[in-house]
């Protein structure tokens, strides 16, 4: 995947681009806002990673300009600005995701992958499949190997999110934000507990585990075969 990283701090830029390269991505780095805007406007990248505070032009101005010009490349804000209004401001300006420095690298990789897979226009798929697991989104039913599984609404939402990102890692924070709308770090094991319940229903009686734990990163649903 081709990623544009707009970051003025050379240490962070080197760290992020090395990490992304090692995960198999091609990274282009812009050192200030103007170069960043120029490169992003070319629309040749799959994802743009954007700092908020940049020399010459700040991140919010860049994204507003891009969106106004009709550039739809997914943008992830990567920033030290963690004020309670900053995230909302970044997303309202047209950002697709917001990650606060410092971050775990696994979190960045997972979010970048999730952004890239986000199709420009969401196709109205009503049945999602992973291996022998099937989710019917209109009827709100789940079956595995033809057997009906009863899920509570929140469990359904959790499974749907995993399945929509099938084959990719989703992190604990991504789940907290998207399933519970929690924009803070709870001190308890909410995600772990709910995933374990979901596993009890979806995986336990079927031999093959679809929901896998990715150590130090998060969870991933995939067909191991």
């Amino acid at each position, binding site marked *: 995947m081709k990623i544009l990283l707009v970051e003025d701090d050379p240490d962070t830029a080197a760290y992020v681009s090395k990490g992304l390269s090692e995960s198999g991505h091609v990274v282009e780095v812009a050192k200030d806002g103007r170069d960043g805007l120029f490169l992003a406007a070319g629309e040749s990248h799959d994802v743009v990673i954007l700092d908020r505070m940049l020399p010459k032009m700040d991140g919010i101005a860049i994204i507003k300009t891009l969106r106004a010009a009709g550039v739809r490349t997914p943008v992830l804000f990567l920033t030290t600005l*963690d*004020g*309670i*209004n900053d995230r909302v401001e970044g997303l309202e300006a047209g950002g697709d995701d917001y990650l606060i420095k*410092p971050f775990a690298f696994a979190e960045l990789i997972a979010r970048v992958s999730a952004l890239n897979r986000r199709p420009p226009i969401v196709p109205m798929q009503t049945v999602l499949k992973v291996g022998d697991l099937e989710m019917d989104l209109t009827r709100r039913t789940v079956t595995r190997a033809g057997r009906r599984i009863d899920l*509570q609404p*929140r469990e359904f939402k959790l499974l749907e999110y995993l399945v929509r990102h099938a084959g990719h890692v989703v992190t604990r924070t991504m789940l907290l934000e998207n399933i*519970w*709308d*929690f*924009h*803070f*770090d*709870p*001190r*308890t*094991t*909410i995600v772990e*507990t*709910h995933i*374990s*319940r979901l596993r009890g229903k979806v995986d336990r009686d079927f031999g093959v585990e679809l929901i896998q734990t990715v150590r130090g990163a998060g969870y991933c649903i995939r067909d191991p075969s």
Partner: protein
Amino acid sequence: VTLPNFLRTAAFKLALLYATIFGLSSFVLFVFLYWSITNYVFEQTRGSIGLEMSSLAEEWRTGGEKTLEKEVNERSSKADSVSSYYLLQSPAGEHVAGNLGTLPVRDGSFEQLVAPLRAGTNQPRVAVLFEGRILPDGWFLAIGRDLKDIREAYDLVLRAFVIALGASVALAILGGMLMSFGFLKRIEAINRTSETIIRGDLGQRIAVLGTHDELDRLGNNLNRMLDRIQSLMESMQQVSNDIAHDLRTPLARLRQRLERVRWPGSKLADYQREVDSAIADTDDILATFAATLRIAQIEARSRVAGFKAVCLSDLFTTIAEAYAPVAEDQGQRLVASVAAGVNIQGDADLLTQMLANIVENALRHCPSGATIDMRLSNGPHAPLGVVSDDGPGIPEDERAKVFRRFYRLERSRTTPGSGLGLSLVAAVADIHEIGLAVRDNEPGARFEMQFPLRGAPGL
């Protein structure tokens, strides 16, 4: 205060303005009065001349020229004291009687400078108002009044008015100054207090007289602003102290760990384990740091402006659903009874975190087997939220302290937690004007949230 400075003060300018307006209005009044008075005096004089003329004309009609001549001479001899002038001329234009030389013959009212005949000598010329009448057989009769008295009366009136005007303008300036000084003295007091505050004494407050006028309101508002600034500064101070105090310990621990791993002879597995621990330590430090800043930001109220309607019922249900399995895994029970359709104005993210922190606090401090009860009711006046448990509870003298930053009960020192969870709760409650109370649940702890009436906060 030097003179040029004095001329620049608002007190002087205001006084001058008062005086100008007052002087102008007095002047207009004076012009009108002067005109009325002089006009009245003049008309009176003309009226009295007219009356005399009528009576002399009557003499002539009944007695002819001789009677008239006698009458004119008689009146002329008495006229010295009243400054009256008489003249009777024959049709040939010769002086027949009276205390004047000849005059041009004309009918009606006119003014003329004349030299009166007195004791046969020529007197200095004086301005006289005349009325002349040409009698039917060509005789000419004129009666006049010296204008000197009228002019003197005019001067008198004028002088009186000038003095009165001067006095009133002086009074206006003086009164204006007194008034302005009284008023501006209070503003000056505000200025002096402000300067003291600027120099660093934030404890100073502006004196309020209790008169409930604009200046009192200004003073009150300034004082409230100062209170706010002071509490913000104290809060900043508090944050710095907290950071210095509570981040130093974990940072020191991290440093020790890094130093230890640097010692020679460690195996790769040891390195990795120690680095993992160091990362975990760093994450804890960052979390504490973030929480501290977040509380400070919440206390700065930057979010109040963005308050929207938040459904408390949904919020309670979401939290209950999210945490019930967590409780169950710890051998506890979380039950909820939530009234439907309860809304307040607020920030959904912050309210969620507030409630989550209270519930997590209960989950963390209650032993296995405890029951945690979440309730949301509509209350008699406003919504009431309660999170209660039957765990160990909080000693009475500690209840108020649990909302302090980094405060932890003695027995909780060993459980994980930053001691910031409930401070954040207090901060969120404060900006939402939620009445927060900790009570004894007999047994256990009971957190009560008395929500404001819909729409109350932030307005």
